């Protein structure tokens, strides 16, 4: 390459940098957010929230691509195959939710411990480390996609295991980042003060991080491999994540509504007992058909059937607290999303999960769109909602604790975002449920799950129209997401009334 070419490249890069700098400044002038309103820990938290929202966008975008391929199989064929789109769809989901949770914890860590975050700098380094790693992983997913059947592929491209596809090098990176995060949490509570919430949080994080390690090994024996794979997936979403959300919810209700700490913590312990008491052995509902012994049919069926109980308790908790405090609070969108969480968690995980958790039913619904129906409502209802609620809490504080009420001028935005997102996901859930029923009958019960049976079910008009409805409601979800982002960036702008301060009572 000659030097003039090189100069041109440098020139272009400079011009590009300049342009993006101007863009950033224009954006900053437009959003009018003042970071002086945030503590150091909260500034770190909003970084996590920002990346979470970007990855949420990626999740929905790639979900739309995958859903389109169900209807037009040649769409992006051998460019971005279904497997690639779906992998990014669900991997982005896991990662954005983890980003959101870490952000939530950093958000309230200083408030709850009564002191400054001990390893703030370390926390920032960990954030950039994780974010660069995620970027590289996604680029490799998109550009390299697959490798030869060798260990190196699993180390550097992807591990080919649903939900935890990240290559091994990234696994190790994630563990390091989690350790830094964990250190920050424990060291900060130790320096400040411990509380019931702090104790539950700490023990839960140990379990959450420890479980990830269970999914980091390659095994030839697929029964063993799936056995440990479920330790990660199930014991995350039906035990440790659920308790983490309980912690976040406990703190939020205390702040948002002023519920008394003693009541909140008693509730939290009850939820932990019920959730772990049913969820840990409920793991057995994934051990019906993977080669594991028959006693799992009984254990898994029994304990997982109890799992809805804590979820009912959580609904009672949220609604009761809101009711006794007459819904008096200064952040209506956040409270609305918290109520959505309580119900979404109960219906998505509790009701939809219960419907297919007994082995006699699961024999026919296993591995059909039934699971996808439940997966969508559960992940959205339990985990997307609580994160969105927290985004609203964060943005309010960032704006200087201004009033965010349902009667404000632009309140239609958050109301419509709430409606479109929940309506969109619910619509997809129903469409997938119909598809799942049809598969259970035709593919599983009548045709005996052969390949021909599979395609008979896929080609059936009721399945095909369900896929169209799913894409349609995906579009609704997408619209709701765009509106949500717009609302988050603008809500409270120019509002001068302060939110009423809520005190414990």
């Amino acid at each position, binding site marked *: 390459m000659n030097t003039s070419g090189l100069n041109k490249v440098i020139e272009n890069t400079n011009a590009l940098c300049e342009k993006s700098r101007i863009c950033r400044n224009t954006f900053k002038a437009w959003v009018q957010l003042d970071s002086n309103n945030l503590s150091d820990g909260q500034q770190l938290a909003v970084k996590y929230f920002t990346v979470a929202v970007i990855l949420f966008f990626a999740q929905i975008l790639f979900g739309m691509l995958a859903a389109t391929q169900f209807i037009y199989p040649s769409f992006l064929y051998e460019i971005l*195959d279904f*497997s690639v789109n779906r992998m990014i769809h669900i991997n982005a989901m896991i990662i954005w939710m983890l980003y959101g949770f870490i952000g939530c914890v950093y958000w309230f860590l200083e408030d709850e411990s009564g002191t400054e975050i001990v390893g703030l700098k370390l926390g920032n380094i960990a954030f950039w480390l994780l974010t660069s790693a995620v970027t590289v992983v996604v680029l490799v997913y998109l550009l390299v996609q697959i490798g030869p*059947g060798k260990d190196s592929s*699993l180390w550097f491209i992807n591990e080919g295991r649903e939900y935890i596809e990240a290559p091994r090098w990234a696994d190790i990176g994630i563990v390091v980042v989690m350790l830094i995060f964990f250190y920050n949490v424990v060291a900060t509570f130790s320096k400040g003060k411990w509380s019931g919430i702090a104790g539950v949080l700490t023990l839960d994080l140990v379990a959450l991080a420890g479980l990830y390690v269970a999914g980091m090994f390659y095994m030839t*024996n697929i029964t063993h491999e799936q056995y440990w794979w479920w330790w990660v997936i199930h014991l995350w979403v039906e035990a440790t994540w659920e308790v983490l959300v309980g912690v976040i919810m406990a703190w939020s209700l205390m702040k948002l509504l002023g519920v008394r700490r003693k009541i909140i913590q008693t509730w939290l312990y009850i939820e932990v007992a019920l959730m772990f008491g049913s969820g840990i052995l409920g793991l057995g509902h994934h051990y019906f058909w993977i080669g594991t012994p028959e006693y799992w049919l009984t254990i898994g069926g029994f304990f997982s059937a109890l799992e809805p109980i804590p979820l009912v308790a959580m609904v009672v908790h949220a609604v009761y607290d809101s009711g006794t405090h007459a819904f008096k609070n200064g952040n209506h969108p956040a409270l609305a999303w918290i109520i959505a969480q309580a119900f979404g968690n109960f219906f998505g995980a509790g009701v939809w999960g219960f419907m297919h958790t007994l082995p006699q039913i699961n024999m026919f619904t296993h*591995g059909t769109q039934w699971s*996808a129906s439940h997966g969508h409502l559960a992940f959205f209802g339990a985990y997307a909602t609580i994160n969105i609620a927290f985004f609203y809490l964060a943005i309010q504080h960032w704006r200087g604790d201004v009033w965010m009420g349902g009667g404000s001028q632009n309140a239609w935005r958050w109301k419509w975002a709430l409606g479109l997102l929940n309506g969109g996901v619910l619509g997809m859930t129903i469409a997938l449920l119909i598809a799942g029923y049809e598969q259970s009958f035709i593919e599983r019960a009548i045709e005996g799950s052969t390949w021909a049976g599979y395609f008979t079910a896929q080609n059936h008009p009721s399945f095909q129209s369900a896929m169209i409805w799913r894409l349609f409601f995906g579009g609704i979800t997408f619209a709701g997401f765009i509106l949500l982002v717009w609302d988050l960036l603008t809500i409270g702008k120019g509002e001068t009334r302060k939110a009423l301060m809520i005190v414990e009572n």
Partner: protein
Amino acid sequence: MNEIPLWASESFWKKMAIWVTAGSFLILVVLTMDSLTKTSAGSQRVPAYSVINKKIDYQYNNVSHKFMPIIGENEFLFGKEFTDEEARQLVDLGKKTTQAKNCMNCHTLLGNGAYYAPDLTKAWLDKGWISKEIREDMMVKFLMDPENNARTFGSNRKMPNLKITEQEAKGIIAFLKWMSSIDTNGFPYNFKTINAEE
């Protein structure tokens, strides 16, 4: 408020939370040790990798009231008898390839994965391979060039070319054959194999 009863007190539920969690986890650990032993390769439920040298079928068992794999006489794969170690290596190559190619994000394996393509649990036994004489050959060809050997059953959905080599294809087939011999407690129900008479 006057006296808080024990069952409504914070400390009672704190203790409950700890004991219930510890107890459940302990039971899980014990069951895990038992399950892993009972499902190691070479156990009753999960046969040794050298099962790829045998004929495999899947039939309803009148005693246990469920469909069960049946392991028969010799039926070599690719016309060769594999030693234990060779069999393990070939299945291992196949398993690794299924991960490196991300099969699980279109297919289900043991019913887990994605729902864009058929379940692979009993793929080895599927009638889709027409007859046992041409099955192995069809499978190799299909895996190496799925686009031109596609049978989409009228769905227009085609598996993409994943640049699978011949050796990898043979590994995958060995892996699928071995997987079809796992006792999956009767899932899938009522599956008619390639061996069954019409």
